[in-house]
């Protein structure tokens, strides 16, 4: 959506700027959903990176694409389709065994099939190409109030689930063997975590879309892991990066006629690049 038609011009008083954009319900929805998703993606992403599941997370979003497109086809809320398909995918991946989630060829094969299936559904729908476009690249400005509510509930569920399992997740992420010997069930934990990733992916797809899921679920966490050595700080930083990118992305896109997800993806990439370059200089 081109927003520049709404825009009153940018002023240096940021507060007035925010007040300006928050007059519009769709902007409020966008900020609310964006904030929830950024927090969730920052936290979940930290473990996704730690457990080396970024490709699996990426694949789950593609599985979700088929679900969302299917939902569009039969006329229900795409978010429902997303949640169903990603959860199914996560469950399958986890129960196939502990190494399944890192088998990139197999995952890639399923991913391509799911994307193809999604394309078929979109084609059958004969609706607007914008549906496919917003699934693939996100449409944060089109989020309805009811989807904000679903996002909030999903977000709270994830936050609570992670808070409860936090230490076990951390232990198994860093040292699977000892954690298992100490009585933690790897299968149970993998199922748990991939379900969390599935839900997190589903709500993040609304913001950045299937193809740009890395921007929120992986890059902020990867940045945080380069900068911190304590998990609690790492998660906090990961959330902060995701939040800043989302807010800035929304803010900028209010004034410039380019997609929000482009700004989010670009911002996190820039930060990542700066961190890498700065660290390379320190170590040389």
């Amino acid at each position, binding site marked *: 959506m081109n927003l520049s038609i709404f825009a009153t011009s940018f002023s240096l008083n940021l507060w007035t700027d925010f007040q300006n954009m928050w007059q519009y319900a769709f902007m409020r929805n966008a900020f609310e959903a964006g904030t929830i998703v950024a927090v969730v993606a920052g936290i979940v992403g930290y473990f996704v990176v730690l457990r080396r599941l970024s490709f699996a997370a990426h694949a789950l979003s593609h599985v979700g694409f088929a679900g969302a497109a299917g939902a569009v086809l039969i006329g229900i809320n795409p978010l429902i389709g997303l949640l169903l398909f990603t959860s199914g995918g996560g469950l399958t991946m986890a129960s196939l065994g502990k190494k399944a989630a890192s088998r990139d060829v197999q995952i890639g094969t399923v991913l391509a099939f799911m994307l193809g299936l999604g394309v078929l559904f979109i084609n059958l729908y004969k609706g607007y190409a914008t549906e496919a476009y917003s699934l693939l690249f996100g449409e944060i400005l089109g989020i309805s109030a009811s989807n904000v509510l679903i996002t909030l509930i999903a977000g709270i569920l994830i936050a609570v689930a992670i808070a409860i399992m936090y*230490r076990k997740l951390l232990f198994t*992420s860093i040292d699977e063997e000892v954690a298992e*010997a100490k009585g933690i069930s790897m299968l149970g934990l993998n199922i748990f975590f991939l379900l969390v990733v599935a839900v997190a992916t589903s709500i993040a797809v609304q913001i950045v879309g299937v193809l740009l899921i890395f921007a929120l679920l992986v890059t902020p966490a990867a940045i945080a*892991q380069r900068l911190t050595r304590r998990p609690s700080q*790492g998660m906090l930083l990961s959330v902060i990066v995701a939040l800043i990118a989302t807010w800035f992305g929304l803010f900028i896109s209010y004034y410039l006629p380019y997609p929000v997800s482009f700004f989010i993806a670009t911002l996190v990439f820039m930060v990542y690049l700066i961190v890498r370059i700065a660290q390379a200089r320190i170590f040389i």
Partner: protein
Amino acid sequence: MPINPSIIRADNLSLSYSSKVIWKDANFEVKSGEFIGLLGPNGAGKSSLFNLILGLSKPSTGELEVFSNQPKRGDSRIGYVPQRRTIDDDSRIEALEYVRLGISGTKLGFSLFKRAKHERRMAYQALIDVDAQNLAHRALSELSGGELQRIFLAQALVSKPNLLLLDEPLANLDMRREMQLIQLVGNIVRKQNIATILIAHDINPLLPVVDKIIYIVNGKIAMGKPVDIITSKKLSEMYKAPIEVIRGSRGQLAVLGVEEAMHHES
């Protein structure tokens, strides 16, 4: 309570996978505070014995008691360092936080403020015990093999175990570091009175510190003092092949003929 309580007791214990017998008729006892070296060729079933003690697998026949009970998975009285390698290259988590997981890693919820501080203090103390306090804030991925082994050891010790299982901690260490680590382990387990079983390839670095050894070969398990087990007669019997044990002037042992015996066997 007896002065020297039994930590592990094996009665006619045997282990097999499907129909293949790994070893059988194992009878031994490990008492509180004893330092045991576990030796034997590759694939003899040394790590499998650890799995039994940890409750990760079940014996085929016989009795195994750990702390006078059936072994159960996740017993916090056991500290365990599996055989390995390095830690994941990308994880930049500091050593202290890793060690801390030894106390908190199996619990639900998270600890804040005072509790977190307390856990970090305990983890730091464990690092001091293994002489690795200078590594506390280094990322695991930056540490060398010898440094990592000390961190693993600290993690196993932080929960104050009564039994310590170390699987090949000396692998990939040079001779000097081998000696340092074994001395360190020896000092700690003596000081804290922890029964310890350490898997190793070579008997020599263990000789100054161990009380007894368990030797597994060809499906047989023998336990005793090193001088009683590492003899030409005893080993020839176990390997069913002529094995020669030669004693050096400083007590070092050279075991000859093992390669040929294993070759012959397979």
